[in-house]
């Protein structure tokens, strides 16, 4: 389905989806607002916010894109013993374990230069890594579930799965960060 290249046609195709996604993101903003006092007290935690949302969304969307492609090629089956499915799940977890310590270390180092030190580097790396592992497991669960539902309803996974997964992971990123901060601090 090609959209005409006019402002009106493009807007008609995009705006409804954008408005729905915005309401979802406002939901994650409200979670963020609920621990605003803590975030303002510890600038390092504030610095973790965009990068945690972004990385969680990316982990989900990369996995979703790979599963969608495998699904189109007919090389994917929804069986826990399926090598492709298991391999992609393992890779997502491995990516989280290697990326999130860098996220925590980077956020601590950069805010230490700009705003000074309030939290120990180990604490920030721990918050980031625990959130990352939890997010990877959630991203795998959400992506596989949404891909499976799309498959059951015979929807094209490319159209449905990626936007749903990316924005769900955005929200989960904030919720998990909030939960981890309460746990660790």
């Amino acid at each position, binding site marked *: 389905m090609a*959209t005409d*290249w*006019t*402002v009106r046609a*493009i*807007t008609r195709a*995009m*705006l409804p989806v*954008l*408005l729905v*996604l*915005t*309401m979802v*993101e*406002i939901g994650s*903003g*409200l979670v*963020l*607002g609920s621990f*605003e006092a803590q*975030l*303002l007290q510890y*600038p*390092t935690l*504030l*610095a*973790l*916010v*965009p*990068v945690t*949302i*972004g*990385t969680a969304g*990316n*982990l989900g969307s*990369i*996995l979703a894109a*790979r599963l969608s492609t495998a699904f189109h090629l007919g090389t994917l089956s929804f069986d826990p013993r399926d*090598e*492709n499915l*298991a*391999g*992609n799940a*393992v*890779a*997502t977890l*491995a*990516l989280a374990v*290697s*990326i999130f310590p860098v*996220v925590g270390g*980077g*956020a601590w180092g*950069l*805010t230490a230069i*700009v*705003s000074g030190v309030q939290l120990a580097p180990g604490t920030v790396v721990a918050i980031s890594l625990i959130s990352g592992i939890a997010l990877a497991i959630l991203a795998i669960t959400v992506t596989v579930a949404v891909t499976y539902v799309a498959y059951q309803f015979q929807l094209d996974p490319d159209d449905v799965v990626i936007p749903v997964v990316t*924005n769900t992971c*955005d929200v989960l990123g*904030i919720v998990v960060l909030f939960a981890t901060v309460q746990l660790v601090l």
Partner: protein
Amino acid sequence: MTVRDAARDAYREALPALAASLVGGLFAGVVLSGMRAELRAVPGLLVLVPALLATRGNVYGSLGARISTALHQGLIEPRIRGGDERLRAAVAAALANGLLVSSFAAIAAFAILTVFGGSVAPLPVLVATALLSGLLSGIALAGVVVTAVFAGYRRGRDPDTLVGPLVTTTGDLFGMLFLLVAVRLVLFVVGVI
């Protein structure tokens, strides 16, 4: 193919894109952590942050995807000069949608916080901040996306693989930088009035 092979392939393909967006996200975080004074001065602004960042990604990611598909199909020429009509319409639509959605987010956040009795800045302050940051970051992002996709295409790169990492990296960074600029301008104007 074993699980180990599948995992190794997936890991190697995903790591560069994740690392690129990590850099953009970290710098966006530093900007956010540096605007604590503004966040205190404009209650409700923090609630808007995820929506505003996601809108940048959704709108300009879609603009990039649209332009790269059109390049593949030969619908547009990879040249900015000469002002192709289709290209101008696509950029105008992205800006218009970005502004509409940003102000919608500001109104929705204001309404929800008011209903639930949270402390929230006056509606005009939130809407003006969202619109101004949407306009400034929109102009910057449209410029970056169009220029980078055209330059990549002329050098024989597949623009489809450029758009994702480019928009996630620059979207967060420009989104936060121009949010800071916008809220400072709005607070300055409010102070003068």
